[in-house]
């Protein structure tokens, strides 16, 4: 638990440190501009470069984390699924295996590859376009980065919709939370997480449906623990994105509009990354549940 908390608090620490650095440098640059007013443009450029050096670090790390997770998951999929499926069938679960839609497995591996090869590089491209637009405003790629973000949200929503279709085929709803509470939580997430809020609630609903069907096999407590574990990268990314937007909002009156705009853009892009990380979490969750199912079948077969 402590490790989970530490991993969640680490980005807050980093972004708070970045905030203090930007304030410090902002003050230094205000003094310098007052001291040598003829070099205002040069100082503005240097400030942007310094912001890039210190500010992009947590964002790039979040991206690299999701990228690493995706590539590991692709390897895992390629290696483990044929063995798992064979194992389930061999341990007498041939009847049970029919309840697992094989298309889900194929689809899960396809989305992981898609996330690793197209979605995350596209996020990186959006990052780079934002950076260029803010460092050199005459060469603005802001529409391009907005387009990338919108396309990514669109494609992720389609993938999640397909997931929900696959899952509802097998889903047996046994969710214990009442509908009213559920709806309130949904509205809360939708209203408070910009851009991807509604998409996130939909993905949570899909995961909930899937976990309801899986909990018949594994039990609620295990499902909850696995859900918590797989959602850490997503929560972490959302947290970093929120902090970036907060940083941009706080710094807006003190620093140049381009700098607060850059921080805001990084926040927006990280929100999109968080929804992509939901896809990864989904696949990860699916893998764990399948492994547990295999273990359970193996034990019951021996017994």
């Amino acid at each position, binding site marked *: 638990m402590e490790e989970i908390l530490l991993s969640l608090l680490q980005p807050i620490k980093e972004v708070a440190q970045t905030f203090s650095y930007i304030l410090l440098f902002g003050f230094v640059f205000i003094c310098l501009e007052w001291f*040598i007013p003829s070099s205002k443009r040069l100082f503005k450029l240097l400030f942007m470069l310094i912001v890039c050096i210190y500010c992009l670090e947590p964002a790039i790390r979040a991206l690299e984390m999701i990228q690493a997770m995706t590539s590991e998951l692709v390897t895992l999929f390629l290696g483990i699924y044929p063995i798992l499926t064979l194992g389930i069938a061999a341990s007498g679960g041939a009847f049970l295996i029919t309840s697992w839609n094989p298309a889900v497995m194929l689809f899960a591996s396809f989305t992981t590859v898609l996330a690793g090869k197209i979605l995350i590089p596209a996020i990186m491209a959006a990052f780079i376009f934002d950076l260029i637009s803010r460092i050199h405003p005459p060469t603005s790629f802001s529409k391009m980065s907005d387009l990338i973000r919108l396309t990514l949200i669109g494609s992720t929503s389609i993938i999640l919709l397909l997931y929900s279709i696959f899952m509802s085929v097998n889903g047996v709803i046994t969710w214990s939370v009442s509908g009213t509470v559920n709806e309130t939580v949904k509205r809360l997430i939708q209203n408070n997480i910009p851009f991807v809020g509604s998409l996130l609630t939909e993905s949570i609903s899909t995961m909930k449906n899937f976990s309801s069907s899986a909990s018949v096999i594994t039990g609620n407590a295990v499902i909850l623990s696995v859900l918590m574990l797989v959602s850490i990268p997503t929560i972490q990314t959302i947290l970093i994105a929120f902090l970036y937007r907060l940083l941009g909002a706080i710094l807006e009156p003190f620093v140049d509009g381009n700098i607060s705009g850059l921080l805001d853009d990084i926040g927006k892009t990280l929100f999109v990354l968080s929804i992509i990380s939901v896809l990864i979490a989904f696949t990860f969750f699916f893998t764990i549940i399948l492994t547990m199912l295999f273990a359970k079948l193996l034990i019951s077969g021996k017994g």
Partner: protein
Amino acid sequence: MVIYITIILAFVLLQLVKETYPRIHSIVYTIYIFLFLTYIFTVLIIPYVSQYISVIPANLLPVFKLLLFSVVLLFLSQIIEELFLDYEYTSLASLFTFTTKAILLIVWLNHMQQFYDKFLSILGLLS
């Protein structure tokens, strides 16, 4: 306060030189400017900076040093450029400005190597 008095005294003395020996006024003025700059750097800027640099966090120190170097260079270049312009050496002033900009660019690019290495590695991931 010492600096104000020095500047006022220098102004009076330079005016005196201008009236008595107008031919050597420009050379005296130029020598004075360079001597005064040396005095400011050795007596004021360097001791103050070395006194307060320990306050800056260790991971920000390289950037702060670079920033300080850039500001000092800009300040020097601006004064020398104005000196050249006073004597109508416009081309020399432009050359001086150009050299300062080139030095600043090279120094900052060298410092940013780590950043653009990361940037290029991200570009590499796109392919």
